[in-house]
């Protein structure tokens, strides 16, 4: 039966994240995909699962002084500093156009206090154009405040609870790899009402210019992404998948289906592609096609059948 279903229509790569039914398990990472229109000339947005928008904050932020990017071996250091127009201007000027996107649109909320997270989440989630909220409690590029929430179980719990109270839409909480015990943070965030977890944000890092004897980023430190962090991110998903029963959106250096499968086999129900789009804007299509052929070659009907398959401690998705 399963085999017939697979051969008649091709294997399914559909997945579910909270209340979101996604035709493809591919989200585009926050801060890496603009609002989607920047990539529309290169890729069919209807073929992707969804776009996670750039994080928005309560007040406008001009962001960090340049330089904001350093290319590293197989990776990218960034320190953007949450440049965004603030929630008022964002709601007024930007959100309406998201209605045209042929895929899920997930708003990303960043903050510097529990109250910020509640306030911005409530206002953004109230808009019909926004299908779900991702809580960015793990930005490493805004001084100590931004990431503190993902590094302190008490604060992670409070921020999640505050956002949960103000919206019934799917709530994804994005965790930081820059912690000793990511599973412990994942557990409290699950208990505080998150519907899903994004694992992981960037790994803290820096680079120094030996000619000038100065840090190369305007912000001194930054967040590392891309292929360089993939093993760190796969391990984080592996550990979180053993600790919680909510779905995980795995991310960190995914460029092709094999990369994505590492995360899925570790226990992720979906993946997110950020830096991979910078290497090749066709990455979302490459990943989706590759996942379909992986399943077809093995006569597996659905991607859901391989989630967590490599992880004996995988607790299963509720």
């Amino acid at each position, binding site marked *: 039966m399963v085999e017939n279903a697979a051969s008649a229509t091709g294997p399914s790569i559909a997945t579910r994240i909270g209340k979101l039914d996604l035709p493809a398990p591919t989200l585009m990472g926050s801060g890496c995909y*603009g609002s989607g229109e920047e990539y529309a000339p290169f890729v069919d947005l209807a073929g992707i699962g969804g776009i996670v928008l750039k994080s928005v904050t309560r007040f*406008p932020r*001009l962001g960090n002084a*340049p330089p904001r990017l350093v290319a590293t071996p197989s990776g990218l250091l960034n320190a*953007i500093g949450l440049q965004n*127009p603030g929630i008022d201007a964002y709601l007024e000027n930007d959100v309406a156009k998201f209605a045209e996107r042929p895929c899920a649109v997930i708003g990303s909320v960043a903050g510097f206090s529990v109250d910020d997270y509640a306030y911005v989440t409530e206002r953004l989630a109230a808009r019909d154009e926004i299908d779900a909220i991702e809580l960015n409690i793990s930005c490493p590029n805004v001084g100590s405040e931004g990431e503190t929430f993902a590094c302190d179980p008490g604060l992670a719990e409070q921020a999640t609870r505050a956002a949960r109270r103000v919206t019934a839409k799917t709530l994804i909480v994005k965790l930081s790899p820059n912690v000793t015990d990511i599973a412990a943070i994942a557990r409290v965030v699950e208990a505080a009402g998150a519907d899903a977890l994004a694992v992981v944000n960037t790994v803290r890092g820096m680079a120094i210019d030996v000619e000038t004897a100065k840090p190369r980023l305007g912000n001194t430190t930054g967040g590392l992404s891309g*292929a360089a962090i993939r093993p760190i991110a796969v391990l984080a998903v592996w550990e979180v998948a053993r600790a919680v029963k909510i779905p995980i959106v795995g991310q960190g250096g995914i*460029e092709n289906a094999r990369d994505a499968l590492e995360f899925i086999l570790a226990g992720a129900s979906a993946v997110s592609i950020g830096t991979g*789009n910078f*290497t090749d804007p066709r990455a979302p299509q490459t990943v989706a096609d590759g996942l379909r052929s992986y399943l077809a070659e093995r006569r597996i009907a659905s991607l859901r059948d391989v989630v967590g398959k490599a992880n004996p401690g995988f607790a299963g998705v509720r």
Partner: protein
Amino acid sequence: MPALETSPAIHRTVVSDRREPAPGISVVGLYAPRLAGATRPGQFAMVVPPGGERAATALGIYEAQGDRISLMLVAVGPRTRELATLPLGAQLDLFGPLGNGFDLAALGDEVALVAGGVGLASLLLPARELLARGARVYLFYGARTAGALVDADLFAELGARVYVATDDGTLGWAGYVTDLLRETAMHFSGIAACGPSPMLRAVARVAADLGVRAQLSLEETFACGVGACWGCVVGLSRESAQAPRFPAPAPGETRDYVHARICKEGPVFWAHELRW
């Protein structure tokens, strides 16, 4: 500078020719008919790395004629060396054309083009178009040493007057090309420049002193190259026509300018509007 109507796309190109005008500097010709037709002077393309696992490389489009475009590059690191040594017939995927390009109409009829090193690559298409419409073009071209001054004859053949400078004095003016520009005491209706950022800052100062407006094509590390990540910004006056819409600064913000994306609002900006 008016934003140009462009239709960027992914192009599968094929290496058609290659030459090394100086050690370490390569010009790679590509069969890319659609891209050649769509490119405007000063635009760039992102080259998808053949091996994956690193960001695409932004390169100014050097020549664009008929079915062919070319890219000029210095083979400094592994990625540029990989591009410089691609065999003829190899496939290379690019996306573009990207960025705004120069506003040639605003430069007038007595135009100084200022190039530092392979910054020259972004000035050939402007030179061609300016000369075609009857403008006089003066190329000020600086490099480390005589051997690194490549293709100056190409500009001369088109009809540009060429002035060269070398850091080590092996050819032309000994010293910075921007000092040469100042010393000539010629009259220009506009300046267009491309090169390393210390040179561009110097061009901005000289232009201000000469009372001439300058368009600078900025170089920066890009991640996306398409305006999606806000990684490649420069400070820009709020009054600039290129300034992205941004609300009044939040309480406590001391910076009175905005950040513009070099890959999207740029790479070409009016020197006097930059806050850098």
